[in-house]
């Protein structure tokens, strides 16, 4: 067993990883930026090393300083957490090159999965269909019309060169196509100096579901159930639940088979997730997250398995202590992300608690929450025997949640969890966008 692990992250996820280390008897070394001097992960770690100024690119993204800290503090391994350098294959390579163990899949695997086009192609070659699409010749509207007809409306035009919504247009009818083609191409050219467009089937208000696995490089893959991340607002995951309220057994089996095939083929190490969009009973592969995810705690709450501990064991001991399907009991788990909506200093903080409730947070009274980093300040996770019990418990937990001095989305979360739409379980990734936007009017 390793003796000492450096946690290359901050916030609640750093706290989570430090706890996993201590549960395993491993010494935890924290790193922090000057802005995080008083952060909870710094307090809970056995040692903490300052790695740079507030700006993330000079601290939490400063791989050199992080690796130096790990080497000099006699660490055996580096856990990248979520975000920052977690899916940076070059950082992973440097970590292993420095004689440290990397808590994640091999750098080449990260690299492959990080290229969304390659990943999609690999999945397709393994019989896992992605969202249908086609590269198109903007200059040849007739050919584009033919491609669009083949995919079926609505379709979406995307700039091949970039993202962020630039050069992106939803086309709902053939009549609109020619016009929007010009608009999108111009926008793409302006934004990326490249007017090449890509045509994709537009999935209307899909369900967003992911399968959690843990694997070893020898091809062993254990399924740890699904998480439904359909409740989103402005494309941000807000609520996660397991099992999904809108999944056929057929969908589930298809996604699980895909997970077993893909991760087995990759020789993947540790925790991973494969994400799908589901529309009209069809599952479309979206991407693989080659790391721990924020919402891993939903799976922990239902299964009682310490995912982070298991991840560390898988990546350092090449060992799995879970057997797979037997691990997923009946029941239901639900998570709400509490995000700060502006900086502030925590004046009073009494998080919910008691039976069936877990709160992962780095907040405490007196902490100043600055605007440098992620807005996530707490995750409230509940377990219930069924979905209704879970929802009732979450309502209770959110109503207990007392936080003064820091503006958050708590009221938004209460509105979602209390809504009949959520209770019915029949919604897509954009449902709450329209409901909540309408409510505001």
């Amino acid at each position, binding site marked *: 067993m390793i003796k000492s692990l450096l946690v290359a992250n901050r916030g609640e996820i750093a706290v989570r990883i430090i706890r996993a280390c201590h549960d395993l008897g491993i010494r935890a070394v924290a790193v922090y930026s*000057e*802005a*995080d*001097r*008083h952060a909870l992960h710094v307090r809970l770690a056995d040692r903490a*090393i*300052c*790695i*740079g*100024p*507030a700006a993330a690119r000079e*601290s939490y993204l400063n791989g*050199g*300083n*992080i*690796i*130096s*800290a790990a080497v*000099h*503090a006699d660490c055996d391994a580096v856990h990248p957490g979520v975000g920052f350098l977690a899916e940076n294959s070059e950082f992973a390579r*440097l970590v292993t090159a*420095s004689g440290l163990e990397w808590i994640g899949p091999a750098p080449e695997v990260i690299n492959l999965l990080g290229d969304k086009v390659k990943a999609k192609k690999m999945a397709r070659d393994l019989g896992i269909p992605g969202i249908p699409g086609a590269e198109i010749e903007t200059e040849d509207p007739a050919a584009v019309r033919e491609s669009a007809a083949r995919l079926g409306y609505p379709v979406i035009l995307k700039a091949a060169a970039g993202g962020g919504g630039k050069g992106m247009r939803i086309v709902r009818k053939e009549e609109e196509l020619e016009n929007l083609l010009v608009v999108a191409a111009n926008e793409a050219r302006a934004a990326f100096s490249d007017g090449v467009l890509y045509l994709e089937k537009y999935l209307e208000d899909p369900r967003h579901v992911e399968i959690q696995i843990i694997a070893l490089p020898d091809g062993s893959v254990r399924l740890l159930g699904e998480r439904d991340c359909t409740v989103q607002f402005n494309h941000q995951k807000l609520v996660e639940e397991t099992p999904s309220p809108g999944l056929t057994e057929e969908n589930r089996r298809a996604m699980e088979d895909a997970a077993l095939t893909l991760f087995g083929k990759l020789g993947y190490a540790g925790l991973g997730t494969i994400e799908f969009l589901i529309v009209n009973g069809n599952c479309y592969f979206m991407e693989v997250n080659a790391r721990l995810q924020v919402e891993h705690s939903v799976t922990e709450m239902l299964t009682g398995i310490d995912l982070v501990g298991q991840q560390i064991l898988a990546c350092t001991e090449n060992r799995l202590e879970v057997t797979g399907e037997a691990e997923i009991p009946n029941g239901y788990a639900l998570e709400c992300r509490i995000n700060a909506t502006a900086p502030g*200093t*925590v*004046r009073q903080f009494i998080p919910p608690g008691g039976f069936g409730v877990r709160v992962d947070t780095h907040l*405490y*009274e*007196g*902490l*100043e929450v*600055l605007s440098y980093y992620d807005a996530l300040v707490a995750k409230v996770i509940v377990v219930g025997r069924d979905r209704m019990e879970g929802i009732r418990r979450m309502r209770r937990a959110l109503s207990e949640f007392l936080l*003064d*001095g820091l503006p958050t989305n708590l009221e938004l979360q209460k509105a979602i969890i209390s809504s009949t739409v959520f209770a019915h379980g029949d919604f897509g990734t954009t449902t709450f966008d329209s409901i909540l936007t309408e409510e505001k009017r």
Partner: protein
Amino acid sequence: MDKTELYELLEWFDKSTLSEIVVEKSDTKVVMKKGGVLPGDAPPHLPPAETLISDEAPKTKEGNEVITAPMVGTFYRAAAADAPPFVETGMKTKKGETICVIEAMKVMNELEAEFDCEIIKILAQNASLVEYGTPLFEVRIDD
């Protein structure tokens, strides 16, 4: 105002963001208050992270400058074990001259003086780990 009315008012007030309400009506007077957060309140239990966003170099009480480590690594006062230290206490050094090296990722990073100055004190131990911001030298800037 009867009990039901009062109770309704209480419930409403409780949910509202008001901090105080007074209602007087013929022979009735109702005062409700909530303990709010004070603007300009006393500092919290923990010192906030307020000192951090300054770009200015830290100064000692005597008004001397402190040169801090710009990276994480091992601090060396000399280029090699058998070489003389780059600087000693009391020495004057010129802008651009190497004052120490910090070894990080197996690379020796030479740290140069950013101004002409006199070395007043050496604050870090040779061959020790320095973090970002660890004080290395106390110096007096030459005018």
